[in-house]
């Protein structure tokens, strides 16, 4: 019986998808990332049992896949983020779009840290394991990311408010 099978469960799959979506900003590519990574993890077989933190390992694999994809792109449009299908209320939809757009403007490491901490609820030690850095470095990146996000949102909200006032 293989251990660590929970990394193929639906919640983990969804988590990998959200992370890939944050990094790539494209639904189909994010789905490709999840399928590719899940296939690779499955093919690892018994070697997977030696991995201490399988979920962190899976997220690191997603990150590697996404970085490769981003490198392949000639130009990454950080402005372009697809609509999300699940939101029902318009204000919620607008919030998500704005936050997604703001996250998309961050450098890759900040994006990863803010996604894993604020969306997935990972601990800073787990994020450090995913990125292969020290925990205090993770906190520093997180702080910079949150400050940057706040600035982007304030600027964007002001721009939108002034834009709608002029109309």
């Amino acid at each position, binding site marked *: 019986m293989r251990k660590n099978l929970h990394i193929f469960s639906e919640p983990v799959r*969804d988590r990998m998808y959200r992370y890939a979506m944050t990094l790539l900003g494209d639904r189909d590519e994010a789905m490709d990332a999840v399928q590719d990574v899940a296939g690779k993890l499955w093919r690892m077989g018994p070697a997977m049992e030696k991995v201490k933190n399988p979920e962190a390992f899976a997220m690191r694999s997603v990150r590697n896949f996404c970085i490769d994809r981003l490198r392949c792109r000639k130009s990454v449009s950080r402005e372009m983020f697809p609509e999300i299908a699940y939101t029902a209320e318009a204000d919620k939809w607008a*919030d998500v779009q704005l*936050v997604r757009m703001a996250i998309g403007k961050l450098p890759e490491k900040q994006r990863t840290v803010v996604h894993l901490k604020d969306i997935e609820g990972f601990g800073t030690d787990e994020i450090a394991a995913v990125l292969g850095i020290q925990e205090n470095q993770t906190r520093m990146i997180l702080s910079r990311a949150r400050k940057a996000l706040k600035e982007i*949102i304030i600027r964007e909200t002001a721009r939108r408010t002034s834009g709608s006032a002029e109309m």
Partner: protein
Amino acid sequence: MTETGKIRPENAAERLENLAVSYMEGTLDEAGEAELKAMLLSSPGGEVPRGYEAIALLFRGFGAMAQERMPERTGRKRLFIAAVSAAAAAAAVAGLFFIVRPVYGYDSFGKPITDREKALSRTECFQQLSRLDISVKSAGELACFLDPCGGDECVDPEKTDF
């Protein structure tokens, strides 16, 4: 803090500011983060304290994004994948059929005979031919015994003058 355990308004503002600063520094623990979220998102009337709108919006956005689930593949791509899968499955079944199908023998051109009835009739035919061959041989031997010279005048080799 009052005697009843409620936070005074001036202390609440101070607490909110401390929590927000710690959050932005990345040093706030889980309990503190939950408290900050509650203060910003569960305020009476849904009003967010002035100056904290951006953080409240971030919390709302993060919360909604955390509920997002991986969609099923749809449209052309899905149809293409389904078509390719169906073709691959059909090819696999056909391949399996040809691999598993027994070969009973080979015809005179070297082609395998996989039809059981055909193979049986072919075997019977060979058996009949074999019997016929034995009968013909027996008849020949008998004829030779009865008439060793085949109807011609027999020549005694010892009397032959060369």
